[in-house]
């Protein structure tokens, strides 16, 4: 879900999205969205054709994540506008759109990995060109995130999907895994692109536009190490954390815990559903084999077997959507919470540093009448900036969290409703079949 999707249509003289052709959809007509279409990070509303994309070995996935998730977002637009409370809203115009899609497998002598196409459309002058299309792998996203954390320590950086997967347990190249990961990467990038500060970060610029990021990889590991060292080496003790940040911390702890519980429940449900499915299949098979030894009852029994099979398909669909759409979002929020807690800690650090220096300066002042040093004032500024940024980001995060979870839970409800509707339809058509046969028999008896 795009962080910035809360706001309405772009205005103020920019070209409306309908008239901007995506570079890859050159073969298609311009889009003509309805009145309610929200402008999100994706420019490819019409979807992309497979033709024309011939580099690499295509990994089989369904339609690009952006297209389908776009339609999901479209449904909630009416609510989103009303809920937007973003302090940046007034000044922001949508002028940077990014999409992650089209996964492809690359096989080299050293390794096998997946790359994703990252497409950008923008009118910002910070970019040299209006459009870019590059291929990036997970490592590159990771690099970007670390760079953002380093360069914008006072902001909440959205999370990435998990980096490491156990090789024996999860198939890194399976359709499902790649699809799920790609959706998360797309979400990450859109959130960054919609952030009023992060989206102007030069590293993001490089990520979106540079042909070759490889040269910078080596730095990634180092900076990660460097950062953790920075944390430990702070050394200042915090006196009094402002109440609102305490509240944030507590909230995050509780929320994280609840998400963990929900994750466990969802997994348990998946397990039960899977076992249910196994038994259902067996059950349907028994009806079929009984039908084979009957004459009058053969059609009814086969009918029931058919219904059960349809229900099996519906159960499978439900389970698949739970594991592919529901669980990943939960997990992503857990990661998000972790990174937010980190930022809170950093804030505490900078406040502690300021308080420490201030105290030292006051002591010195008392001794030799020196004015408050500039560094102390800088520290104070830093803390105040940090607090302001954090508060703004927090509000935005809360708002987005609310939308995301509203969407998640209504999505879950929808999937379940759809499952029951499919089952009901199957059984209803069976009854029609059986009752028709009954009236058929009755009329033939009286004849």
């Amino acid at each position, binding site marked *: 879900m795009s962080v910035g999707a809360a706001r309405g249509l772009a205005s103020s003289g920019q070209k409306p999205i309908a008239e901007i052709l995506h570079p890859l959809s050159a073969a298609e007509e311009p889009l003509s969205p309805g009145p309610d279409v929200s402008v999100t990070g994706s420019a490819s509303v019409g979807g992309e054709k497979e033709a024309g994309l011939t580099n690499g070995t295509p990994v089989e996935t369904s339609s690009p994540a952006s297209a389908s998730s776009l339609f999901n977002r479209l449904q909630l637009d009416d609510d989103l506008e009303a809920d937007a409370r973003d302090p940046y809203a007034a000044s922001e115009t949508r002028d940077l759109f990014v999409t992650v899609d089209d996964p492809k497998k690359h096989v080299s002598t050293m390794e096998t990995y997946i790359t994703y196409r990252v497409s950008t459309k923008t009118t910002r002058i910070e970019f040299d060109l209006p459009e870019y299309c590059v291929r990036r792998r997970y490592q590159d996203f990771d690099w970007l995130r670390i760079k953002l954390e380093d360069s914008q320590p006072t902001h909440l950086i959205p999370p990435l999907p998990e980096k490491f997967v156990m090789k024996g347990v999860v198939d890194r190249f399976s359709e499902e895994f790649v699809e799920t990961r790609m959706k998360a990467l797309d979400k990450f990038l859109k959130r960054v692109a919609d952030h009023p500060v992060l989206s102007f970060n030069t590293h993001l610029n490089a990520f979106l536009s540079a042909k070759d990021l490889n040269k910078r990889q080596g730095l990634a590991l180092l900076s990660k190490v460097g950062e953790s060292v920075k944390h430990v080496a702070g050394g200042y003790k915090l006196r009094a954390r402002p109440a609102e940040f305490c509240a944030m911390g507590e909230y995050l702890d509780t929320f994280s815990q609840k998400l963990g519980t929900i994750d466990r429940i969802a997994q348990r449900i998946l397990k039960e559903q899977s076992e249910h499915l196994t038994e*259902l299949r067996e059950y349907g098979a028994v009806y079929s084999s*009984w039908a084979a030894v009957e004459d009058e009852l053969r059609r009814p029994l086969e009918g029931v077997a058919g219904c059960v099979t349809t229900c099996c398909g519906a159960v499978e669909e439900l389970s698949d959507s739970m594991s592919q759409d529901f669980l990943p979002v939960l997990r992503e929020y857990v990661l998000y919470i972790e990174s937010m807690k980190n930022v809170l800690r950093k804030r505490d650090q900078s406040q502690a540093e300021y308080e420490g220096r201030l105290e030292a300066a006051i002591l010195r002042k008392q001794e030799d009448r020196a004015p408050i040093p500039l560094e102390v004032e800088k520290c104070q500024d830093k803390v105040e900036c940090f607090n302001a940024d954090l508060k703004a980001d927090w509000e935005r995060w809360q708002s987005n969290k609310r939308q995301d979870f509203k969407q998640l839970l*209504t999505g879950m409800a929808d999937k379940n409703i759809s499952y029951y509707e499919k*089952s009901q339809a199957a059984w*209803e058509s069976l009854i029609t079949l059986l*009752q028709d046969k009954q009236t058929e028999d009755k009329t033939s008896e009286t004849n």
Partner: protein
Amino acid sequence: MRPGSPTTSGGKMMAQQGKEPLAADDVSNNTAADESINNAMVEQGSILLRRMEICVAEAEKRSGKNAVNMQETFTVYLIETRPMDAVTEGQNPAPDSLWRRYSEFELLRNYLIVTYPYIVVPPLPEKRAEFVWHKLSADNMDPDFVERRRIGLENFLLRVASHPVLSNDKILCHFLTEEHGWKEAVCETGFHAKSDSRLRALSATFRVRNPDKRFMEMKHYSDELQSHTSQLLRARARVADRLYGVYKVHGNYGRVFSEWSAVEKEMGDGLQSGGHHMDAYAASIDDILEEEEHYADQLKEYLSYAEALRAVCRKHELNQFELEMASHDLISKKQQREELATGIVRTFSFKGMTNKIFGQEAPEQREARLKLLEELIAEGEESVKEKTVECEEHVEQAWVDMQRFKEQKDKDLREALISYAVMQISMCKKGIQVWSNAKECFLKM
């Protein structure tokens, strides 16, 4: 039959085809073939059920001493009967009633099986709870089990009382109308003696040369029916178990949403009320699965019916076997007579050997033996005649009843499948309702 009781439809046979789901005052089916059989075999009269309303109204626990003088608790069932005339005339007299326990029903059924070996006798509800999924109790005293058994016993009585042949049985009537002295009356019929242990030994095989092909096919079918219904019951129980798990785990959402809502501001209400619907969802499965047990009971009835069908076929096998044995015996005796009369030994015999060794026997001895043989042959011919008649009669009557059974089975099972589909639809509708309600709440988050 009650002497002197006017029957509303005395002597009138029904032409109606097809059996409705059994209700207390329903009429049973009767094919044209049945009509003639009935006329021939039973007293002039109509099906018991048309004259009498029967139901098993209640169940109660009793305590008493059992056969080995130990204290035991058991359940008794109240059988109520009312003359149909009174009912149709709009009067509402108090029904006659008596209490019977399950073992008495068993005794009645065993009597019927032995006395009418050409009839597919309706089965009783199961003695012990089988095909139980984990939440269901296997305890015979469990109230749900007792209730389903009550329904099953009523069903049994209705089926028997609407059967063209069985309904006329005096012991049945006695069972329904007089509480005391019934057991003695049953024993006095001496049915125990008629019961052939060979029939009960399922593993016994008779080497029958010329069984009626139709009966062999029917026996084979009964095996198939038994196998498939029991497989189905087992599979259904497993599905029920799993479904139970899926629903119940959703209840956990209720709890965690409630806890989570406590730390949320705008989202809290929607979350909490959504959670309540998750609780409702989890709770709904109990009733759903309890209702499905009725479907299982219908399948169980036909599982037992398969056995009854098989018994009729086995009886035919036994009859045919005895007939063949008797024929074979007769043939060999006739051969012996021939040899004795003509002196030509066709087959090896002890007498032939001794004749060779010790010389021919004296003419008087031969005469005596011949005379004995003639007697035996006469007896044997009688026996073969009797057995042939018995066999043919059984085949004729059994074939009629097996056809009746087949029609009944096709109709009943189709209706059972329809009602199962209806149950499934109801379950889906409930699911849609709950999740829609939950969705409404989530939308307000």
